[in-house]
C-alpha cells in the first residue's frame, strides 16, 4: 500500500478522531446513546484502518496479540467483579445501588465500570478477530 499516499495521509488524519469518537461514545454512554459495545467497535475500527494502510506488522507492534488477549479477559473480569463488589457491599449481584452511599451515584459508578469492561473486551476481541483473519494469508 506504499503507493497509496493520499489514503495514508487521510488515514493518519482520521485515526485520532476515530479513537476520540470511540472514547466519547464509551464515556457518554450513561447520559446518551452509546456504550461499551458500540465504542469498542469504533475503537477497533481505527486499528483496522491502520492495518489496511500500514500493514499487519505495524498494527501488531502497537497492539500485540498477547496484550489484546489479556485486555479481552480483563474486560470480562471487570464486569463480573463489579457485580461481585455490589454483592459484597450488601446488594444483589450487579445491584449498583450499593456501590456508593448515594444509590444514584452508585448507579453511575456501576454502569461506567461495567461499560468500560464491555468496551475493553469488545475492542480487543474485534482486533484479535481481524488480526487473525488478516494474518492467515501470510502464515500459509
Amino acid at each position, binding site marked *: 500500500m506504499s503507493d497509496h499516499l493520499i489514503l495514508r495521509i487521510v488515514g493518519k488524519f482520521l485515526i485520532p478522531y476515530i479513537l476520540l469518537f470511540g472514547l466519547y461514545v464509551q464515556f457518554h454512554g450513561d447520559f446518551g446513546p452509546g456504550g461499551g459495545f458500540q465504542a469498542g467497535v469504533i475503537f477497533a475500527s481505527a486499528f483496522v484502518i491502520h492495518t489496511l494502510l500500514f500493514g499487519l506488522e505495524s498494527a501488531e507492534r502497537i497492539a500485540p496479540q498477547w496484550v489484546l488477549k489479556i485486555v*479481552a*479477559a480483563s474486560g470480562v473480569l471487570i464486569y463480573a467483579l463489579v457485580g*461481585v463488589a455490589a*454483592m459484597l457491599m450488601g446488594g444483589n449481584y*450487579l*445491584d449498583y445501588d450499593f456501590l456508593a452511599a448515594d444509590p444514584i451515584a452508585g448507579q453511575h459508578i456501576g454502569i461506567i465500570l461495567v461499560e468500560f469492561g464491555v468496551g475493553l473486551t469488545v475492542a480487543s476481541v474485534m482486533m484479535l478477530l481481524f488480526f487473525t483473519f488478516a494474518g492467515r494469508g501470510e502464515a500459509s
Partner: protein
Amino acid sequence: MLAHLPVLVILAPLLGAPVASLLRGPNWPWLLATLLSWFALLCSVLLLIQVNAQGTFIYTMGGWEAPWGIEYRIDFANALLLVLITGLASVVLPYARLSVEHEIGADRCPLFYTALLLLILGLCGITVTGDAFNVFVFLEVSSLATYTLIAMGRDRRALTASFSYLIMGTIGATFYLIGVGFLYVMTGTLNMADLAERLPAISDSSTVRTAFAFIVTGICLKLALFPLHLWLPNAYTYSPSAVTAFLGATATKVAVYVLIRFVFTIFGVEFSFGAEPLAEVLVPLAIIGLLSASTVSIMQPNIKRMLAYSSVAQIGYIVLGLAMGTAMGLTASLLHVFNHGLMKGALFMVMGAVAYRMGGTSIDDMRGLAKTMPLTFWAFVLGGLSLIGVPLTVGFVSKWHLILASLELGWWPVVVAILAGSMLAVVYVGRVVEAGFFGEPKDATKREAPWGLLVPLWVLVIANIWFGIDTRLTVDIAEAAAAQLMAGGVVR
C-alpha cells in the same frame, strides 16, 4: 451467602473462564476449572436443599424486580438439572486432565478449559433463569462454546461436524428467538412467570400459536429430536472424549428442560395439549426416533458413534414421557433426563479411556478389552446394562416409570415400543460386550487406563448403581418437580 446461591453457580465459571484463558500450561487452567466446578456443585446441592425446604427460590438480578428486571427462579425442575450439570462437570473435569492433554495438546489447554467453563456457564444459565430472552443469551453462550469445543477434536472431520452443528444450532436458536419475539409482541413481557399469567387470555390468537410452533421446533432442533437430530452423531463422534462425555450427558438435557418449561409452565398443559396437537406430533416422532436410532446404532462400526445414535434414541424416551402430558409421564421424562446423563456420561468416558490407550474407538479397538483393560471394560458393561434398563441400574428406574405412565394412559403400543427399544439396546450393547469378552486383543501389550481416567469413570458407574437402588432422591424430586410443573406456571 445462601441468598446468593443461584448467582454463585453462574459466577464460578464466569470468573473462571477469563482467568483460565490467561493461565499457562495444561495444569493450572485444569486445576482452576476443576475447583470451580466443585464449588458450583456444592452451590447446586445447597440450592436443591433450599428449594426442598422453602419452595421456589427467587433472585432478582441487579435488584430490578421482575417483570422489568431479570429474575432467577429455581424450583424443583431446574434445581435437579443444575445438580446434573454441575455434578457431571465435577466428574468430567478431573477426567479431562489426561484425556485432553493427550487429545488436544498442552498448548491449547488454557483455551479448552476457557471454552468448557463458558459451556458450563451457558448451560447453568439456561437452567436458572426465569426470563425467556435471557434463555436465548445463555443458549448462545453455551452453543458458541460447544462449537469451539467440538472443533478441537483430533480428527479433521470435527471441523465439518462443528460447522453443521453451528448451522443447525443457529437455526434452532433463531426459531426460538422468533417465537419469543412473537410472545413479546403479544404480551409485552419476557418474564416467564408473567408470560404464564398473560398468555391464557390471548391464547386463541394465531400469533401465539405461531410462537408456540416456532419455539417447540427451535428447541427440538437443539435437543436433537428425530428427524432434527442429524447434527448430533458427527458432533459427538469427532469431538474430544471429555467434551463428548459432558455434552452427551448435559447439553441436550438442558434443551429438554427448556421445552418442558415452555410447554408446561409458560403455555400451560391446557394450551399445549388441548388447543395445540403437541402429543399428536411429538409421540410418533419420539417413537420413530427411539426405534430407528436404536436400529441404526446396531450397525455402527465406531462405538462412539453408536453411543451418539443411542443418545438420539434416549431423547426419544425423554420426549415421549413429556409428550404424554401427565404428571407420571413428566416424572419419567425428568428421571430419564437425570439418569441418562449418568449412563451416557459413564459410557462416553469409557470410550475416552479406550481412545487414550488404543488410539481409536472402533469395535476393533474394543476387541479383547476384558483381557487388556478389565476395569474399563467392566465399566462399559455396567453402563451398558444401565442403558438397556436392567434392574438395579438407573436405566431401569426411568424406563419403569415410563412404562407405568404409558399404562396409566392405556397406550399399549407405546409400551411395546419402549420394550422393543430396550431389546435393540441389548443388541447394540451386547455386540460390543461380545467383542470385548471373546475377541482377540488387537495389541495384547496394552495396559489398563491410568487411574486419572478410571477413578472419575467409576464414580459415575457407581452413581449409576447407587441411584438405581436408592431411588428416593431422584424419584421424589422428579415427582415434586412434575407436580409443580403440572400445576401450571405461576408458583409464587
